[in-house]
């Protein structure tokens, strides 16, 4: 095999670990710091982090080079790429090293483990994980006569609060009550929190998914919510760009919205008002099941030398240590995969400063480990997400929620069908 041609050692006699990632902005800075520290403490290994664009871009490239001498040792891939990576056959499940070393994975956050366990095997090493949260403007709450410490937990509370928070001036709405980014992830989470499944076969965890079932009652509730609120004029359509959403919130155009836990800190820092963070709301009378983990994990390539794999494993383990995880959590807002990190001093200090961060962790901790919150496992996830986004967008055009949802499901089915042919 060509892959053995990969020089596993560089000229200093160090084992080289090529680490492709998609961390940009401040995340990259932190990541580089951590890698630097690792390299210092592990003289025989040299990890080289290389930015490869967005998750999609990195994946495309990995796809093309996988199996050749240009393959990276470690590859970071977003959660929805899990199934795809497994199917590609180009990766080495980390379970092998867990077994060899008897590595204790119980120290990990169980919900995270849950997500990345497929057929009882852990394929990749969770790394940066996040969940959705409700973020709201406390000042606006006060202004509207709402209790800033009592954010809405159910759909009706949400609607009620949104109505109060919506401000009109002349014919113009200057402040909207609520908003959700047109992004499939939020829909998936709103579904999962009610215990709804995305696809059949237990969310694809019990064999290949063949059919989308998100157009269920649970899914419809989400769509109805959006449609109703939009009709009322309390919901603001922010599009599908994260930055637009942040801008809408920070400029007080929107008083409440859903965001990723990873972004909380920056929002707090930049907002000219007090920011509250809370759990995802659920429909009235529905029991809260918890949230699915988002973010990305690290994958190890298959056709590389033993030595490199070992070194890569070493690096992965290092990333999972409480100290590193604490630092990672504090500096980025992503979860620590190892809850022990939350006992670290720096985390405590940080939570002191940003008590909101703890909310995100709590939400995850309270999640029940059921297939719904384990997350769906399908290889055409990105495509399916596009369909859901389109369905969400069509709501603003007055399309019936049921119809929109059914169409998205049908389109996902077709994608699944094609994918299963391969």
């Amino acid at each position, binding site marked *: 095999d060509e892959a053995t041609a990969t020089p596993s050692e560089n000229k200093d006699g160090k084992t080289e670990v*090529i680490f*492709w990632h*998609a*961390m*940009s*902005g*401040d*995340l*990259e*800075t932190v990541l580089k710091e951590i890698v630097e520290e690792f390299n210092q403490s592990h003289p025989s290994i040299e990890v080289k982090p*290389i*930015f*490869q*664009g*967005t*998750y999609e*871009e990195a994946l*495309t*490239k990995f796809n*093309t*080079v996988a199996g*050749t001498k*240009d393959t*990276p040792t470690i590859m970071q891939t977003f959660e929805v790429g899990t199934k795809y990576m497994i199917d590609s056959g180009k990766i080495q499940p980390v379970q092998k090293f867990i077994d060899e070393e008897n590595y204790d994975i119980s120290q990990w956050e169980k919900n995270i483990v849950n997500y990345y366990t497929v057929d009882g095997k852990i394929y990749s090493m969770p790394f940066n994980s*996040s969940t959705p949260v409700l973020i709201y403007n406390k000042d606006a709450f006060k202004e509207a006569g709402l209790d800033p410490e009592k954010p809405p937990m159910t759909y009706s509370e949400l609607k009620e609060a949104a109505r109060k928070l919506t401000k009109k001036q002349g014919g113009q709405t200057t402040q909207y009550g609520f908003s959700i980014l047109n992004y499939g992830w939020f829909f998936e989470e709103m579904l999962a929190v009610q215990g709804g499944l995305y696809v059949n076969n237990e969310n694809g965890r019990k064999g290949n998914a063949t059919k989308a079932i998100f157009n269920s009652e649970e899914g419809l509730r989400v769509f109805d919510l959006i449609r109703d609120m939009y009709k009322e004029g309390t919901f603001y359509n922010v599009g599908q760009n*994260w*930055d637009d959403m*942040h*801008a809408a919130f*920070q*400029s007080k155009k929107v008083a409440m919205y859903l965001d*990723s836990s*990873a*972004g909380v*800190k*920056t*929002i707090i*820092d*930049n*907002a*000219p008002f007090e920011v509250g963070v809370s759990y995802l709301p659920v429909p009235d009378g529905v029991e809260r099941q918890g949230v699915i983990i988002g*973010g990305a994990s690290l994958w190890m390539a298959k056709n590389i030398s033993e030595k490199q794999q070992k070194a890569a494993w070493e690096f992965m383990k290092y990333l999972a240590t409480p100290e590193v995880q604490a630092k990672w959590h504090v500096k*980025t*807002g992503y979860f620590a995969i190892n809850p022990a990190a939350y006992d670290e001093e720096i985390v405590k200090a940080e939570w002191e400063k940003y008590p909101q961060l703890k909310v995100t962790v709590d939400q995850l901790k309270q999640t029940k480990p059921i297939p719904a919150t384990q997350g769906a496992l399908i290889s055409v996830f990105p495509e399916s997400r596009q369909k859901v986004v389109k369905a969400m967008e069509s709501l603003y055009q007055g399309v019936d929620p049921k119809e929109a949802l059914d169409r998205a499901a049908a389109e996902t089915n077709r994608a699944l069908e094609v994918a299963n042919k391969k």
Partner: protein
Amino acid sequence: MNVLRTFLLYALLIICSVVVLFPVVYAFLISFMDGAEVLQGHIWPQKFTMANYAAAFQKVPLLEFLLNSFIVSLIVMAGQLIVSSLAAFAFVFLNFKGRDVLFFLCIATMLIPWEAAMIPNFLTVQKLGWLNSYLGLTVPFFALAFGIFLLRQHFKTIPLELYEAAQVSGVGRFRFFWNIVLPLSKTSLITLGVYSFLTTWNMYLWPLLVTNNDHVRTVQIGLKQMQSQEISTEWGVVMAAVIVVILPTLLLLFVGQKHLQKGLMQGAIK
């Protein structure tokens, strides 16, 4: 020219300039704002901070990227100018069978969406062992149908008499090309040069694909590295980087523009 006309013309010019320049100026102003200010939608920074620039340079090896971009852009520019002008010359001044077919074939390459060709090209470049090298970043762009087309259009305006005169004096075709056609097409060559430089400078996806190494990576990748997906981008920093990135190209444009002076053809023949 009467005064009113001049006045109106200036007024129009200024209005158009404002419209055209506004986005750039806007970006420039944003680059001096801190994150909160940006997200609150200010136009004029309340206080000018250079922190964004400092951050931009500190986050990614922007200087090295800039240098790489320069090298790559220059090589591509030179390559495109040479290859395109040779081809355009053949299309205008050499009359051979199948010329029009070949020309249309060349034009047809413009129609191929680069996105569709990218993966096979990546594999080709990989097979050639050109990953992580300037070769892989530049050579695939040397032939440019657009450039050939642009130059052909310009070469066509060169009076045929000049070609005839050269032929009669026994001057070889290449020399005619070199000594007459190229100097006479200075405007178009500069236009094409600027175009090549800028498009190469602005390439993102291809350099990302064929490089794995900060030592050959270009500045657009650096720009992308500063924007994050899930969490808020620091727009001030990004805009600062945008300014840093477009500054050299704008400068190049200003310099090139100076040379695009009054046409040289005046009084060409009779």
